[in-house]
């Protein structure tokens, strides 16, 4: 396997021996099932795990692509992901800028702000569901205290608010990640640049737009893409809080696929939708790779 450059006689066989367990695991546990799933998407497989009668058919793809539910699921997925990214980056950027400053208790503030990232997904889903409780929840209590706010929404059981409610939970859970990465990015921007700009007469606002944002371009791209990819695959929040409802308002692709396979026993079309999701993920991943591989610009 090694071409040359082995300094030690063990270098001849060591790389192969070290790599094959992981490559084997990926091949057996990831790639083979993926291919098998792709195969099933062209069959009439019903109950997941059982066999199929018709070996090759495009019916699933036909059905899936003409089904308005699929397009609704894609729409929900995109809104959910974009909403998460916008909320998470805005909040994360604010937190990063605040944490980048010197103040007493910065260490503690930093720790507190990071906490949501540390909470298990199931716990976050349960706590927020309790907080969203339309009758006894603390969220509606807070809204009732606020002036000029008419009737409080029923959040998770209201088709108009359910998706927003879940986006809020996801933003709460993911913004610490955005904050930490952006903070690390902020700290790589040289102070000299800010000082030079200040001497040139740039106001703090200008400095933010002329130095901070350009300096964060790459980091920002990474944060946005990772958040998109993670939100695309997020299952727990929707599954536990709304089960895709009410009336499909939160029926994201991942949840839709799950129910297609396990509630409606249409494994074939579940896998066909999986192939769709796979396509979207691969596009995002390729963009991610392109961004991270791009050489640092001067």
């Amino acid at each position, binding site marked *: 396997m090694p071409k040359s450059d082995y300094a030690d006689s063990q270098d001849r066989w060591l790389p192969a021996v070290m790599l094959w367990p*992981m490559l084997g695991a990926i091949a057996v546990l990831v790639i083979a099932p993926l291919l098998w799933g792709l195969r099933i998407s062209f069959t009439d497989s019903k109950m997941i795990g059982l066999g199929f009668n018709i070996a090759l058919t495009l019916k699933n793809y036909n059905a899936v692509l003409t089904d308005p539910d699929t397009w609704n699921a894609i729409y929900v997925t995109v809104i959910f992901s974009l909403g998460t990214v916008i909320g998470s980056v805005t909040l994360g950027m604010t937190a990063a800028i605040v944490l980048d400053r010197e103040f007493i208790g910065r260490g503690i503030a930093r720790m507190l702000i*990071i906490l949501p990232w540390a909470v298990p997904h199931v716990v976050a889903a349960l706590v927020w569901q309790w907080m969203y409780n339309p009758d006894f929840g603390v969220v509606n209590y807070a809204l009732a205290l606020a002036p000029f706010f008419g009737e409080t929404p029923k959040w998770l059981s209201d088709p108009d608010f359910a998706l927003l409610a879940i986006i809020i939970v996801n933003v709460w859970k993911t913004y610490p990640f955005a904050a*930490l990465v952006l903070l690390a990015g902020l700290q790589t921007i040289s102070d000299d640049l800010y000082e030079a700009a200040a001497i040139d007469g740039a106001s703090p606002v200008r400095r933010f737009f002329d130095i901070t944002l350009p300096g964060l371009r790459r980091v920002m791209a990474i944060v946005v893409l990772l958040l998109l990819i993670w939100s695309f695959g997020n299952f727990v929040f929707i599954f536990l809080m709304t089960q895709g409802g009410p009336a499909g308002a939160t029926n994201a692709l991942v949840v839709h696929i799950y129910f297609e396979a396990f509630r409606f026993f249409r494994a074939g079309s579940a896998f066909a939708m999986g192939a769709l999701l796979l396509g979207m993920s691969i596009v995002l991943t390729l963009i991610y790779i392109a961004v991270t591989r791009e050489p640092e610009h001067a």
Partner: protein
Amino acid sequence: MRRRDETLAVDQIVRRISIAAGRLALGGLILLLCSVAIFPFYWMVVTSIRPSAQLFEFPPKLLPSADSVFSPYVTLFETSGLGRWLLNSAAVSLTTGLVATFFGAMAAYALSRFRFRGRRTSEMMLLLTQMFPAILLALPMYVVFARLNLLDSLAGLTLAYLAFLIPVAAALLKAFFDAIPVELEEASLIDGASRLGTLFRITLPLSLPGLASTYMFCFIISWDEFLFARMFIRQPENWTVSLGLASFKGEFVTPWDQVMAAAAIVTLPAALIFLALQSYLVRGLTAGGVKG
């Protein structure tokens, strides 16, 4: 002259006021951000120690009641399977962490130190497997595991977790190995150690923090995981904490005090580990993205 002095004085006052206002705004912002972050935790704990009778009151009391009860933290272990679920999760997470770190470290070392054909491809595969939504792996894996009779067993679940955690561990550790100067290993090779000898005497001792962090990271991912567990596990005695917690949610009535107590117990180990790891995780998860 006097005119200028006055403008200067006014300038000074304006400046002072704006500085003070800025400080105030910053303070407010910090306070706001912190409360947004921790309020749900606070509410979890407050709810868990509130007497059941007071749970469904409106308006809710924001402070803990005077007659707080801590009994859920005890009774949970008697009335529910929480103890069992914790043990299951611990078993799965500890094993996953160990195996993923071991094989991940081997792969990471090979990718970090050797130049060979297919290196870029291997790295690409490593990244791709991390980027897929879990359901894309879970569904077909379910089919395969059903055939292999691996469903509804903790061993099967562990195997499934390894599928995506070995690549994650490899990526995290590669960043770590890359940071160890190659000259240390070269010096050791010249001093008379073999490659493996060098790995065990020099590289691994120096990467202990990285290995520990990777281990803990894999631990919390397994601890947190829900989708695979939900799909693969049926029997309540095989439930992990995620499944157990989710099962509390009743169709009509949910015992929120107990749910919140259980949630607090489940959160504690994960949160402690997370806080210990945070700076390392940022580096690992965005490896190559942020310099320094």
